[in-house]
């Protein structure tokens, strides 16, 4: 590895502009004649719209127009859709209710958009939005997914009786039930996975620009996948054909999944720009974000885990109810199914698994993927169950896990996944050593003398990243393929541009992708530019989510680099009259191995473009593209250990140490990986200790609509993390990488809750473990 190559701790190239305020986000974009949109939103969680009167609003100062759902429908703009088909176990397709970008008949959650005001300024648009008179006929409300399934509850969509979207299963029910019936011990737990708000630092925004001269649209938007946005807006929403629609996702300040989806606002801004003849910009405010960004998690599950007399797991049975909110968001159906139940084997050799998942409509914001997406739900369920089982069986948590670890690879689980590589014992050992597990008893005794209850807990997680083999996901219902594209352009002076379909919104791709090129050709990373986020610049791409940019996006770059390298060697060999098989590339030069003959990289590039002296029949230029479709998922795994002290008087939890030992495969930039782990841990700890979306069950009003009530993790909630990696390279992609973006958020919640329940001696605790819940559980245990 060079100082800037693979494995080097290169400082992030993009940070200069982010840290000096020079980032260019969607809200920074300004075009001549631009006007501002404010949405009129439903204050009711469920109501019929009787009428909308915008007469007074239209007459207000600065107002260009007020548009509503009937006009949108009349102009042929389509429904928002869910792009992953799931069939119920009876064979029937999922029940997708209509989601209009502007509701024209019924509103189904507080914040549902009903009209848009376009005005000269944001303030004038707000004033006018308040003057739009919407006459609602309120309907009864249901927010709880379990209750929503019962008879006699409010019905959200006529297509979905009892609000049931699908009733899906995975695994062998009969074998699982038989193993449970024959078990020496069965551990049963009920698991709640709390609903979360994503809270990216940059709120969502959209700028729609319609050019009547070319009948062409441009959309700047906060997207993790601008090409998918263009495809979906084109193919399903009838905004414009792809060749008439350019989508640009410039700097994006965090996504965490919430910016994967196509939301009503970007569609409406494009449509409104055509209707009004002016560019239209909308920027979400924070309360609007709490109301309308797709939420995450929100599962209610029951679990049975069966053991034989030697404490080997013989079966796992899971029943889950997942709240999908008022409408099916873009990938909402795959999160509680193929991204969840397929990971229920965890790191363990489990012969029989059966999962049943029912998804439900409620009068709440749509729920979709949020950092980890299904895998945190699976890990939390499994690792809390393992900890509970260890306590019931009287085994140490490490011992029970060791007894059940998968130790040979590849390993076929009963729930689709085929694990390619891993060494779970290594991560467990590393984490226990780093945490000084053996010294815990002494530390606990010392804490007890201070009146504090000290606890320790672990979590051994596995996740599936590198989404995903296209044919495999296609067979499971995905509406898209999940390959990635790249194009490497070598300029005539030897500098290099890499076009990637991956999208960076905090991950540091401008640095890590450039490190691949520096490593391959020995050129400085400053001579490499990473270009992403613009459908006019990058031909096609599937974007960034599911920790896929390394395993899939970078693999596409590697394929394109292979092609560039091959052609560069041919040119150099021709220039030096050598055999191309003798050419090696080192430190920015193409050399003839074993001789002192060499051609500098830039000279080879210039030769490619002057084309004065190229091998016979070779095309001029040096530009190569590649598509990479992975052959399997990747399987990052690891062991996290958390140690806490609980104040028994108040229930306040302090995390006294947190250890993360991960296996991410090969690593391109360890510093960036550590940053990803730190951020993921903070998010996971936020879920476990602080965060939770709450709706009033009677009115459907969002009770946590600001940071006054929604508790985000802050620096003083977190310890200094001890992170390390012990890596088994992924055998299925050229770099041997697995992905690291979500692990922290996946592995940490159960480790923390296992530590708290250990401290207080009571297993009945739900997330977030607020001081009151911990205090009450601690007292109930005494």
């Amino acid at each position: 590895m060079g100082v800037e190559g693979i494995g080097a701790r290169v400082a992030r190239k993009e940070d200069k502009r982010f840290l000096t305020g020079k980032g260019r986000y969607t809200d920074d974009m300004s075009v001549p004649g631009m006007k501002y949109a404010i949405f009129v939103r439903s204050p009711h969680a469920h109501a019929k719209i009787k009428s909308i009167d915008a007469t007074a609003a239209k007459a207000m100062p600065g107002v260009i127009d007020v548009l509503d759902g009937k006009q949108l429908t009349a102009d042929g703009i389509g429904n928002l859709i869910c792009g992953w088909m799931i069939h119920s176990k009876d064979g029937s397709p999922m029940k997708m209710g209509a989601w209009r970008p502007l509701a024209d008949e019924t509103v189904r959650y507080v914040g549902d958009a009903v009209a848009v005001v376009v005005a000269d300024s944001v303030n004038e648009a707000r004033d006018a939005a308040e003057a739009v008179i919407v006459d609602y006929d309120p309907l009864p409300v249901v927010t709880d997914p379990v209750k929503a399934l019962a008879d006699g509850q409010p019905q959200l969509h006529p297509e979905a009786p009892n609000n049931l979207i699908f009733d899906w299963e995975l695994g062998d029910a009969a074998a699982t039930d038989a193993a449970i019936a024959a078990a020496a011990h069965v551990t049963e737990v009920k698991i709640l996975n709390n609903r979360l708000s994503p809270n990216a630092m940059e709120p969502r925004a959209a700028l729609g620009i319609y050019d009547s001269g070319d009948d062409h649209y441009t959309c700047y938007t906060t997207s993790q996948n601008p090409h998918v946005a263009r495809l979906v807006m084109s193919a399903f929403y009838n905004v414009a054909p792809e060749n008439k629609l350019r989508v640009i996702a410039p700097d994006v300040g965090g996504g965490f999944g919430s910016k994967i989806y196509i939301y009503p606002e970007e569609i409406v801004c494009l449509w409104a720009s055509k209707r009004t003849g002016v560019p239209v910009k909308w920027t979400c405010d924070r309360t609007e974000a709490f109301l309308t960004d797709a939420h995450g998690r929100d599962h209610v599950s029951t679990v049975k885990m069966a053991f034989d007399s030697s404490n080997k797991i013989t079966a796992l049975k899971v029943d889950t109810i997942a709240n999908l909110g008022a409408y099916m968001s873009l990938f909402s159906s795959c999160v509680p199914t193929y991204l969840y139940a397929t990971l229920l084997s965890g790191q363990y050799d489990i012969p029989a698994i059966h999962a049943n998942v029912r998804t439900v409509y409620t009068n709440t914001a749509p729920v979709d993927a949020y950092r980890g997406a299904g895998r945190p739900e699976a890990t939390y369920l499994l690792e809390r169950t393992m900890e509970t089982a260890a306590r019931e069986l009287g085994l140490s948590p490490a011992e029970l896990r060791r007894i059940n670890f998968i130790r040979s690879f590849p390993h076929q689980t009963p729930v689709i996944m085929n694990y390619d590589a891993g060494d779970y014992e290594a991560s467990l050992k590393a984490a226990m050593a780093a945490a000084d597990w053996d010294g815990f008893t002494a530390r606990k005794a010392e804490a007890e003398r201070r009146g504090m209850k000290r606890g320790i807990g672990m979590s051994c997680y596995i996740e599936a990243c590198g989404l995903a083999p296209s044919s495999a996901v296609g067979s499971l219902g995905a509406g898209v393929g999940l390959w990635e594209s790249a194009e490497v352009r070598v300029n005539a002076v030897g500098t290099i541009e890499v076009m990637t379909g991956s999208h960076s919104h905090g991950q540091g791709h401008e640095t890590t992708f450039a490190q691949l090129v520096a490593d391959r050709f020995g050129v400085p990373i400053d001579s490499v530019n990473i270009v992403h986020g613009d459908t006019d610049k990058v031909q096609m791409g599937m974007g960034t989510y599911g920790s896929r940019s390394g395993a899939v996006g970078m693999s596409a770059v590697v394929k394109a680099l292979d092609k560039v390298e091959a052609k560069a060697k041919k040119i150099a060999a021709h220039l030096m009259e050598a055999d191309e098989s003798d050419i090696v590339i080192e430190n920015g030069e193409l050399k003839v191995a074993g001789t002192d003959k060499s051609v500098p990289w830039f000279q080879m590039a210039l030769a490619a473009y002057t084309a004065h002296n190229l091998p016979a029949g070779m095309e001029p230029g040096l530009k190569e593209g590649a598509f990479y479709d992975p052959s399997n998922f990747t399987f990052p795994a690891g062991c996290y250990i958390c140690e806490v002290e609980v104040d028994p008087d108040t229930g306040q939890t302090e995390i006294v140490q947190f250890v993360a030992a991960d296996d991410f495969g090969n690593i391109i930039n360890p510093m960036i990986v550590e940053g990803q782990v730190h951020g993921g841990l903070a998010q996971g700890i936020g879920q476990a200790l602080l965060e939770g979306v709450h709706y009033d069950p009677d009115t459907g009003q969002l009770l946590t609509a600001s940071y006054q009530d929604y508790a985000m993790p802050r620096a003083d909630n977190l310890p200094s993390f001890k992170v390390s990696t012990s890596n088994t390279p992924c055998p299925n992609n050229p770099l041997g990488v697995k992905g690291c973006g979500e692990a922290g958020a996946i592995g940490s919640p159960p480790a923390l809750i296992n530590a708290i329940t250990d401290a207080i001696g009571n297993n009945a605790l739900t997330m977030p473990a607020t001081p009151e819940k911990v205090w009450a559980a601690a007292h109930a245990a005494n």
Partner: protein
Amino acid sequence: MYQTNYHRPSSIQEAVKLMSGAAEGKYLAGGMTLIATMKQRLAAASDLVDLRHIAEMKGITVNGRSVRIGAATTHHEVESSAELKAVCPAVCALASHIGDPHVRHMGTIGGSIANNDPAADYPAAMLALDAKIVTNSREIAAADFFTGLFETALHDGEIITAIAFDAPARAAYQKFPNPASRYAMAGVFVARRDNGDVRVAVTGAGSNGVFRHQGMEAALAGNWSPDAVGNVSVDASDLLTDLHASAAYRANLIKVMTKRAVAAA
């Protein structure tokens, strides 16, 4: 935010005059609540009369054990006043935990007291210290000043110019913060005077705002020690239940915070 007119008077008299001429005026005394509320369009003041630039309302004076804090004094100024710290460090410590540094450099003691947020810290100190709330027309005992949630004895247009109190022999404030807002979920200010008089004031927990806890006061007057709190019962029926904490949990916090405050005093 709706349109508003901003005024910056340099005397109390000018401030009162500006207010009387405003249609729906509001005094601005730091604006740490008011500006945020206006930005959310939940308040619509026609005029904002800024009290932070009136010289006679600023500064801290300590004479012996007699303390006077101008109403436009910021939390940061209270937190870092050496003279105040010498006679009543509990008030400095309280101010040092309000909001964050930005809030402490903008927010004022007068603004906090006039707003009487049921989870704000200062009202507990005022009540426990038996402070006088000095206005441009009268002095109001703290016991009469805080009348309910966001309600005070102030008349329309009346301005708090200062607060005054005699520093007690011992005092301390302990709060248990709401995990989200970091306002007090229960905050307890204890003060003990040389004559044995004890006051215990509780914020963040009462369903009608700040209040004194007679049971705690009686127990601590008899025995000024953390142990004295143990057997005092706290009635949860007058306490708040919300998203973050039940009344029963707040009752427990009141006991724990009182105990810790006595230990710290």
